[in-house]
């Protein structure tokens, strides 16, 4: 019994499907957004509900410089996306490295802030509700920055060893999408923690 081609041999119209990398990354971002939403809701709900100090008003400084660094890293990563799309691998590597640097500065900044809070102001995760929600929310975001930096760092190593080429621009953009997301989340976290909650 041999198979007879009963199907119209070719499909006349054009057949476009979205890139699976992008769809996957959007899926991840949706899931992550839901996680962050829950933490943000908890933060907002518990604002001012601590039974004892210190309060955010007393101990939190607004991390302007940090925020500028993180947000501008979104711009630099966009520049490097553009560079790789055009095949400009040097430009790509350069902007990529700048992005990593900015992200690292942000992390160091957060570390310094936490150091001050813990050793100077005596605020730890067990001190009060503010401590619990603050370290959880900011820590959750910082975890994402760390993961992002590791991914970016790996890509940089591959770039320096010449393994990243123009045809990888799609993947690079997918990764950059994640970084943009991490930045966007910071806008929310920043607003909630340092503006609304203070």
């Amino acid at each position, binding site marked *: 019994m041999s198979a007879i081609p*009963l199907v119209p041999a070719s499909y006349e119209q054009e057949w476009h499907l979205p890139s699976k990398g992008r769809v996957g990354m959007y899926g991840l971002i949706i899931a992550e957004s839901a996680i962050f939403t829950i933490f943000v809701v*908890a933060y907002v709900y518990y604002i001012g509900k601590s039974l004892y100090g210190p309060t955010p008003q007393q101990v939190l400084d607004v991390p302007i410089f940090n925020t500028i660094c993180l947000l501008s890293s979104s711009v630099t990563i966009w520049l490097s996306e553009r560079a790789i799309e055009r095949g400009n691998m040097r430009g790509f590597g350069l902007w990529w490295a700048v992005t990593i640097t900015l992200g690292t500065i942000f992390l160091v900044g957060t570390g310094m802030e936490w150091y001050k809070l813990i050793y100077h102001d005596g605020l730890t995760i067990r001190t009060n*509700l503010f401590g619990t929600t603050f370290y*959880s929310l900011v820590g959750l975001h910082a975890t994402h920055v760390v993961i992002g930096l590791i991914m970016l760092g790996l890509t940089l190593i591959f770039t320096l060893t010449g393994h990243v080429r123009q045809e990888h621009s799609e993947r690079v953009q997918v990764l950059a999408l994640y970084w943009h997301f991490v930045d966007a989340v910071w806008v929310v976290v920043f607003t909630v923690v340092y503006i609304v909650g203070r």
Partner: protein
Amino acid sequence: MADQTLPIHGALDLTPPRESQHTLLDILHDWVITVDHKKLGLMYMMMAIFFLLVAGAEAICIRIQLAVPNNHFISPQTFNRLFTMHGTTMVFLVGMPLVFAWANYIVPLQIGARDMAFPRLNAFSFWLTFLGGIFLYYSFIGGPGLYGTGSAPDVTWWAYAPLTAKAFSPGHATDYWALALIVTGFGTIGGGINIMATVLSMRCKGMTLMRMPLFTWLMFVNGAFVLIVITPLTAAQVMLLIDRYLGGHFFDTQAGGSATVWMHFFWIFGHPEVYVLVFPAFAIASEVIQVFSRKAIFGYPAMVAAVVGIAFVSLGVWAHHMFTIGMTSAGNAFFVLSTSLVGIPTGIKIFNWLATMWGGKIRFATPMLFCTAFLFQFLCAGLTGIMLSVAPWDWQLHSSYFVIAHFHYVLVGAIVFNVFAGIYYWFPKATGRMMSETLGKWHFWLFFIGFHVTFDTMHFVGFEGMPRWIYTYPADRGWQHLNLVVSIGGVIQAIAVLLFAYNLIWSLFKGKIAGNDPWDAWTLEWATSSPPPIYNFATDPVVRSRRPLWDLKHPEDPDWKYD
């Protein structure tokens, strides 16, 4: 007629498969390292069936204890652990793996793809889910921890704060519980992303969204849906662990934390979760009913819209599990409204299935038997759901056996019934052999009877005011007679399930050879051989209508002519 369907041209690669040494270790190795969606699907399925037996055995212990008043079959602690483990297992280690079992095995075949979008992520997700199961059951051993108190979680599957705080639940059992759910949660997120990307990016030529089989549609919605459903739970569990390990105060009522916040977080996950669990049942019904009624689905666009509608509305109804926590009257009224609204799209689905059967020629093979019972039972369960959604009445019914009856009517009467339907339906595809119809009929009728004896009776136990979670009850309440009936029903179900397990194994070796398309069906998975080759289709199929196989079998009258 049925067996004459031809594989899609070039669907089969005729080069002989590589000869492999079939030692047991080889086979095992093969399964452990596999990234093939079909094998992973089967692994999810085996995991689900295994845990169904385990959690079912736990349920039987529960029922033995409750069969008579003042029983001493098991200790109170053991009883509390058993129902916690029963509920948690059934939801996270039976229900959720089933979602991915079906999605993995069927979806790529139905959309004419060779695998899922991310095969390795797929394997990773499975092993995470499996690991979660191990964590949960390890609590029986590791639960006592250094404190030497307790083993296995005994906090109900809601795990309401502050009962889960270290002060009230010492030992590690609760930690294993939380960890297990976080881990399976990550598995679920991976699986959801994969389904979404597969459906959006891997469809064969011509498989437009509006031509996808309804099964695939439901799985697609489910894949996207779990991403926002399961994650609140993950977040809440992380908070719980922060409380328990790092001394946080999220749910610490002594330090200003709130018990109700946990309730909200849990049910923001928990309610939509039940729809995540039921969507595969809908998916199976949508295929089986069409094929066995010999009629294409009635109102396809409405069916798609209804699923999306259910998913959407169900995100805003969670507090119907919390009518008794003292919300404002306006809050209660809001959740009454939003909850009963879910009945509308669900009604559309029921009516469309009915309309599909209307005017058909219904063949009551085993899959269709289970599916018909599903329709009936889901209708009843939905209506008791409506009763529960009436807040004042829920003040009476909440936490009573009426609720237990309601949700077993859905979880067993709808989901488990349709899972059986699906297994009888697709077993020939996955193994190349039919399941025994005789055993199947026995299985169906026994399970059907057992189910109704158990869970119909439970409604009345609820009306008599018996609360859930009680390990014993005094004889003077008058609950004993009905409880005995419930327990007997549980045993009948157990016999039926064992019969099913026997049927599975028997048919695997002795079943009638099935051929590619034993049911004379219409979707692409029936176009390839049974079991499908590793690459599914040697050449990519091309689709021009919702019933590609119909078009193949009836070149004189293909569906696409009417588009």
